[in-house]
């Protein structure tokens, strides 16, 4: 039995529009073991992106506790949380979020600027990450010179370059054609199988979710 990496206990989240409370997640309880490849599915507004944001520490729950890799992240200050994210979390988004003025190499190198690695060490890490995603021949290309699928692969390389504990992807295939989407999900599956990465993917696409070991559904803020 694999060790539990993510423990979610009674986590609720509400947003406020003016003074009106809009509940998004209701008392979520959920464990994710290390090495899992989990797909979170559900209709729009079901709270799956919100749950992903809470697990990644880019948002805070209204109540409840979130423990990731033994750290109760709900108790961390903003500064501690930022440091924790840089060490433990790799994020992939639907629209890639690559910096257009940086090459593929430099985009992947960006998270390593927060580490104490030397330039040579950073280069080695970046080359490895780009090689894993199959873009060793595109290091000097700018995002505008890459296809959507290639851009997303650069984003994945950037997410894994610092060897995070947890890889989180929010609709990573949402902006891609069928073949590119298939390639991206295959790549994520490979990262899970070959490198043992714990991955959580939020997706609408059942074909994408098929690559995951476990699929959980959210509906109106509750796990079903």
């Amino acid at each position, binding site marked *: 039995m694999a060790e539990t990496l993510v423990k979610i206990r009674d986590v609720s989240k509400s947003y406020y529009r003016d003074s009106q409370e809009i509940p998004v997640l209701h008392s979520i309880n959920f464990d994710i073991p290390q090495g899992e490849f989990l797909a979170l599915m559900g209709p729009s507004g079901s709270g799956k992106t919100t749950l992903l*944001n809470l697990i990644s520490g*880019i948002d805070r729950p209204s109540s409840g506790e979130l423990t990731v890799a033994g750290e109760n992240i709900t108790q961390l200050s903003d500064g501690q949380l930022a440091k924790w*994210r840089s060490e433990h979390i790799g994020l992939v988004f639907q629209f890639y*979020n690559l910096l257009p*003025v940086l090459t593929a190499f430099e985009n992947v190198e960006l998270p390593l*600027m*927060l580490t104490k690695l030397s330039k040579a060490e950073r280069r080695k890490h970046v080359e490895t990450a780009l090689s894993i995603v199959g873009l060793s021949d595109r290091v000097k290309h700018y995002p505008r010179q890459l296809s959507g699928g290639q851009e997303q692969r650069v984003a994945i390389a950037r997410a894994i370059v610092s060897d995070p504990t947890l890889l989180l992807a929010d609709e990573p295939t949402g902006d891609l054609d069928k073949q590119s989407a298939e390639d991206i999900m295959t790549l994520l599956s490979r990262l899970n199988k070959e490198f043992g990465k714990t991955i959580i993917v939020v997706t609408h696409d059942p074909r994408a979710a098929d690559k995951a070991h476990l699929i959980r559904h959210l509906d109106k803020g509750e796990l079903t």
Partner: protein
Amino acid sequence: MVLSLIIRNALRHRLRTFLTILGIAVAVMAFGLIRTVISAWYSGVEGAAPDRLITRNSVSIVFTLPLSYRDQILKMDGIKQVTWANWFGGIYVDPDNFFGQFAVDKDTYFEVFPEFVIPPAQFEEFQKNRQAVIVGRKLADRFGWKVGDRITLIGTVYSGNWDFDVVSIYTGKDQTVDESSFFFRWDYLDEWVKQNWPGYGAEIGWFGLKLSDPDRAADISAAVDAHFRNSSAETLTETEKAFQMSFVQMSGTILTLLQVMSILIICIILMVLVNTMAMAGRERTAEHAYMKSMGFRTYHLIGIISGESLVIAGLGGALGLLLLVGMTSIVKAGVSQWFPVFAITTATSVLVAAVAILIGLLASIFPAQRAARIKIVDGLRVVD
């Protein structure tokens, strides 16, 4: 890579950045030009020596003092040398050809005012020839005068034609020294006064006092004025700086107006850059949110944004300074008649650079504040 990111961000919208840099450069040039005009106005004050006092008639500079005061002043404690001079309002060919003309004591004037550099052989000629004149380099260039030329001025106060022999062309020991003056011998003037105005003579416009100790300037000033109190011509003694400042203050309103204009120009530069940086900050909301999600802290983002703002302001400032150098040399020729010392001072250059840096930092406040306040989830939603 951070510096590279800052520069590439600055050049992301090349046309916008180019126009912003150009706008800053033109404004910086205008700012620098106004500061140069103000400096030119104050050049006499800046060039004043701390170890010199000027003694004049307490009623007004247009009233004279007896030359006999000179020996009495020289005997006072702390006085090293005393010289004197008179203003001579002559016309060279055309009344528009204005320049400063002074009748000075041939033996002591250039000892008290050593900033006028005169070749020794030419100075000897000045001693020998009663009609000798020493002219500044800029004045000589302006009228094409050379050593050996004979010049005629038409006297206004001291009527008639006055002939002078150019025996020397002086240069200033530094760029703050006025090189457009005309110095001739006081004894030549005094001779004319004695011949044409019976009962007058041996009257001077002001004394220049060289002190042995500049720290005693206030005491000595008071002592000189006390000595001549209740005499037929009471004196007013002040430091050379205060004396020069009294002329500058006659144009006080114009100077205030120029100061206000220079501040307004700074505000214009600031608005130009604030606009560019605000647009850049808004466009990069999602990028900043994503960088935060990776673990970049607010101070990292502030550094990147401020850096970009400083790069643009710095390039604008540097280009503005280059334009200022060119513009100053163009304007200089046209204004040399009124501003003998018209040059970009070190203080002006430093001020322009400081303004560029300050503007760069100020313009980054809004986008930096925005980046600092944006919540990651809200920023990422901008993409969606």
